């Protein structure tokens, strides 16, 4: 069995199983606790919980004015690499085929050269994020191993993907195998670290949305 066969076969299978199992475990495990320790006594005319939750999810997409200056880098850079990752993951044809293979869903992709460009920007943005984390006293204090590991496991697929597409450093199939293995590592770690915010942010934002919504307060 070649490295690529291993990556595409057992490694990917195991990683996806761990990913799904872990992610469902964590969501179910976290959210099947009592939902309301403090019952609602909503203000008259307050938003309905559903609307308030939705509002919470969307309002949190951009910082309030007083935080815009200090948080500019965090937000803009965050957007750059999140959108970059989304574009690379969701609009590169080989990736679409991968998703199609799993889910049956299909949509058109973007030209590869454009994807390479976005991936380079994404990688640069991730590096900038790491440098920021390493230099900020606040982030130094609150960062944990999880933060660095999650960063690494997000960064590696971007780098190995770029190397594979540009055939740099080794034979293509080796690079492709490494790329897939790096994604396996990403998927395996995903449910256990902060990468889960990709799913959990909805609940967190939504719950604060409901809490503040019933009070008629801003989010």
């Amino acid at each position: 069995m070649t490295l690529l066969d291993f990556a595409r076969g057992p490694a990917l299978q195991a990683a996806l199983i761990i990913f799904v199992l872990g992610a469902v475990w964590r969501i179910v495990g976290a959210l099947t606790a009592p939902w309301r320790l403090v019952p609602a006594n909503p203000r008259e005319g307050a938003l309905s919980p559903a609307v308030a939750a939705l509002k919470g999810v969307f309002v949190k997409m951009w910082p309030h004015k007083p935080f815009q200056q200090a948080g500019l880098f965090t937000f803009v850079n965050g957007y750059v690499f999140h959108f970059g990752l989304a574009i690379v993951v969701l609009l590169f044809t080989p990736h679409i085929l991968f998703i199609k293979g799993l889910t049956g869903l299909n949509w058109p992709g973007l030209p590869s050269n454009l994807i390479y460009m976005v991936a380079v920007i994404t990688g640069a943005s991730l590096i900038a994020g790491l440098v920021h984390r390493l230099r900020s006293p606040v982030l130094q204090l609150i960062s944990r191993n999880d933060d660095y590991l999650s960063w690494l496991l997000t960064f590696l697929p971007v780098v190995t993907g770029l190397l594979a597409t540009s055939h740099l450093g080794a034979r293509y199939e080796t690079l492709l195998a490494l790329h897939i293995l790096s994604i396996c590592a990403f998927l395996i770690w995903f449910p256990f670290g902060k990468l889960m915010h990709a799913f959990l942010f909805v609940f967190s934002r939504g719950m604060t949305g409901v809490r503040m919504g019933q009070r008629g307060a801003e989010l």
Partner: protein
Amino acid sequence: MQRSQTLGEILDSRGVSRRAFLKYASYVSALMALPAGSAAAMAEGLAAARRQSVIWLSFQECTGCTESLTRSFSPTLESLIFDFISLDYHHTLQAASGEAAEKARETAMAENKGKYIVVVDGAVSTKDGGLYSTIAGVANVDMLRASVKDALAVIAVGTCAAFGGIPKARPNPTGAAPVDEIVTDKPVINIPGCPPIPEAMAGVISYLVSFGKLPELDDLRRPKAFFGETIHDRCYRRPFYERGLFADGFDDAGARQGYCLYKVGCKGPVTYNSCATLKWNGGVSFPIQSGHGCLGCSEPDFWDQGGFYRPLSTSLRDLGPALAGAAVAGAALGAGAAWASRRHQAAYVKEQAASEGGKK
């Protein structure tokens, strides 16, 4: 033609000039991308060489490799290779049969001890002493061991000989093995492909004959001259890949436009071979040009890659049920963990109340 004569002398006696050598040598050196100027050296080498004794062993195979080599040459430049070698044993091509044939092999081995080349097509059955494939009552694996004993080098032509190929495909009932698993004490050159490109076979043999050494090989023992680049690297459809233009099926608009076949399972990006440049059938076409994706036939285990039409970037396995199972198991574990945590929490809080009660 006597074996003591050099190839040059043989041509002399036929009144053919050295120009034929030079022309052939420039052909081979162009094929193998040898440095400019090596054609002359190769021509001199060929002229000075004796006819190369070749013993061709066919094991678990389909004869496609032999077909590929013999059918593709008409009596012009390329067919000169047959003048340079003495095919002393090839049970498909030789006139002799039965004991006479086996005798010819033994004679050639004895006469050219340490100088002959063994070419193998087909995988070697190793299970149960190799009894699933025999010639003249001798198991392939035994014949191979005996034949290579005094050989100069072994050339495994075709994917079966090089990597086990289709006989070795799951579940590999005959214990088929590639040649280089059996032959470990002689140089082995792999020229995979199903079938291999004839020019690659001719090129390697010519190189061996004229320079008396092995061409540069990659880590799978394939000559880099023919297996140094992927089909994808040299594919004329590559620009479509870069631009994100793909055929989604074999009969859609994209297919008619000649778009990249990645989405319909082309293995070009991970297949090292020269099909895109040398092409087939006298340079007429190659699979991608004919509208079908590369199968990756010259790569190890190409038969077990999850399907020819499964795109390269997808998982090799169908994961639907496994992932559904994982989701259910995850939900169960999550609920279980939550239940355990709630119990744990409740016990904790109760303890607290008890200890407080105790203090009061």
